[in-house]
């Protein structure tokens, strides 16, 4: 070992190579930036940047392609899992993931999501749940909590007439086709570490051809919640996590077709 190498400081943290060197457009306190970074880190760690194809859903996450340095397809609202199915069937040896919000995935795209999961498509679905339609201006989403005021539930969501917030992770975990289902959050450093582990696990299981993998990421939307970033993170802890409990809901140890 040369003296030069010995003296060189070991790099322990840096910008992921798959994350373009541009500033995010996201609002202060929004967690999309965190999730983008975790996705880029996972891609780097598996060394799959050149064989990964992302499918961007409609919503604030659509600009995925401005930040992550991979091939990206933009899907119509809700259809990302159908697009990902098409991409994955053509390139079965590639890593294919979708990046979708709650309006996209749990409302208009719920059929595409459930059936892609049920077919056990070898894709990873990253579901950013912030309980509102963010990009369109904070309307009520399928995951909006009871009592939560949004621009289209100005008196607070009521189960009579507006129904209950949908628990996507729990629903998908019941399907035979899903290999990995987890719910994570971005409100504390500890939760961010767990979120990173779950995203990595989902990619790893896809690479290992284990089946459909799904990570629901509870995320803050301070702008549409009318809160500052700190209060928004507190809301995730005090209101979202009790209704949407964190953890790994399902993890196969053998592939579903074995």
């Amino acid at each position, binding site marked *: 070992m040369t003296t030069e190498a010995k003296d060189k400081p070991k790099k322990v943290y840096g910008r992921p190579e798959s994350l373009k060197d541009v500033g995010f457009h996201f609002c202060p306190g929004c967690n999309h930036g965190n999730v983008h970074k975790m996705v880029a880190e996972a891609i780097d760690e598996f060394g799959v*940047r050149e064989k990964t194809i992302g499918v961007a859903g409609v919503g604030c996450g659509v600009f995925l392609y401005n930040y992550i340095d991979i091939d990206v397809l*933009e899907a119509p609202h809700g259809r990302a899992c159908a697009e990902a*199915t098409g991409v994955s069937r053509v390139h079965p040896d590639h890593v294919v993931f979708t990046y979708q919000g709650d309006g996209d995935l749990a409302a208009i795209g719920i059929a595409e999501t459930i059936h892609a999961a049920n077919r056990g498509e070898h894709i990873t679905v990253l579901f950013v749940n912030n309980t509102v339609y963010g990009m369109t201006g904070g309307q009520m989403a399928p995951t909006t909590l009871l009592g939560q005021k949004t621009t289209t539930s100005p008196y607070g969501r009521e189960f009579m007439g507006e129904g209950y917030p949908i628990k996507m992770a729990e629903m998908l975990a019941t399907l035979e086709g899903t290999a990995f289902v987890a719910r994570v959050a971005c409100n504390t450093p500890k939760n961010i570490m767990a979120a990173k582990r779950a995203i990595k696990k989902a990619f790893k299981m896809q690479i290992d051809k284990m089946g459909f993998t799904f990570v629901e990421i509870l995320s803050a939307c301070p702008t549409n919640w009318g809160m500052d970033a700190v209060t928004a993170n507190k809301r995730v802890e005090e209101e979202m996590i009790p209704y949407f409990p964190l953890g790994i809901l399902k993890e196969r140890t053998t592939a579903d077709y074995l």
Partner: protein
Amino acid sequence: MMKGAEAIAEGAIHAGCRFYFGYPITPQNDIPEYLSRELPKVGGTFLQAESEVASINMLLGASAAGARVMTSSSGPGISLKQEGISYLAGSELPGVIAYVSRIGPGLGGIAATQGDYKQVTAGGGHGDYYTIALAPSSVQEMFSLTKLAFDLSDKYRNPAIVLADAILGQMKEPVEIGERPALEDIEMPEKPWALTGAEGRDAQLVKSLFLGDGEMEVQNWKLYDKYEKLKKEDTYYEELQLEDARLMIVSFGSCSRMVLSGIEMARAEGLKVGLLRPISIYPFPEEAVRKASEAINKVLVIEMNTGQMVKDVKVSVDRAADVHFYGRPGGGLPTPDDILAEIKKVY
């Protein structure tokens, strides 16, 4: 001997299509049934999706990934697919849609009709775009025009529709198709824009969202230029017995077959009648209709609807031409006798 619907499916295999995504609807089920049996034999993928919406979006994904891909459907299913068709046009992606019409509006009925001419030739979904649309009139053309649809769709990076009806889908005729070529022997264009993973090149993006100031206007003009090129280079039609004709009939698809019988009867009585048959209904053969109508200024348009293509004929003909219309909507068929009677009325 082959059924029309199967000729479409076989045409797709001959064109190098190895991916099909669809959803059952009458009267086009022979296409998915045939492909579910035949595609696995050639290493292809057949997937019955959860809906027409999902299947057109799977087609979009497979197309963006660089594959030749097809879906098929009928009226209500095509209405649902219009979202994806608009996105295909917006994202400049190829893809072939086989359309075996049923009567509408609504659930309608399953008999033969040409009531979807307007939907198919006007774009169909939201936005300033068109789909390439080919209208076969025989089982042989169901095969050959499906192959052409794949070529044109790739050439223009735009969705292409093959428009047929229950008559064409169900009838059996002799066809010449030859041996199935091996995939590597099929001539297909390179797709450097396809999403294959950014190996050894910059990352690529397939999208239809253009939010920048003025970007969308540039994109719309780009599409317009493509459609102008399409009109110039790939307009298809057939002219029969027009040389000496005093009356020109314009008719397409299965209807034109019945018109031919009517023309034969008219000719036997000494009436000089000919046919101009649009094969591409988008682009419509405007120039051919205009030129023919300079010499023959009596025109009779016959369709199995209440009058859709007749509007394209009216804007295309020479100003002096006199355009008449005879239509049978809702599954009604113009018999050769009906057609002869119409010919005599306007001759």
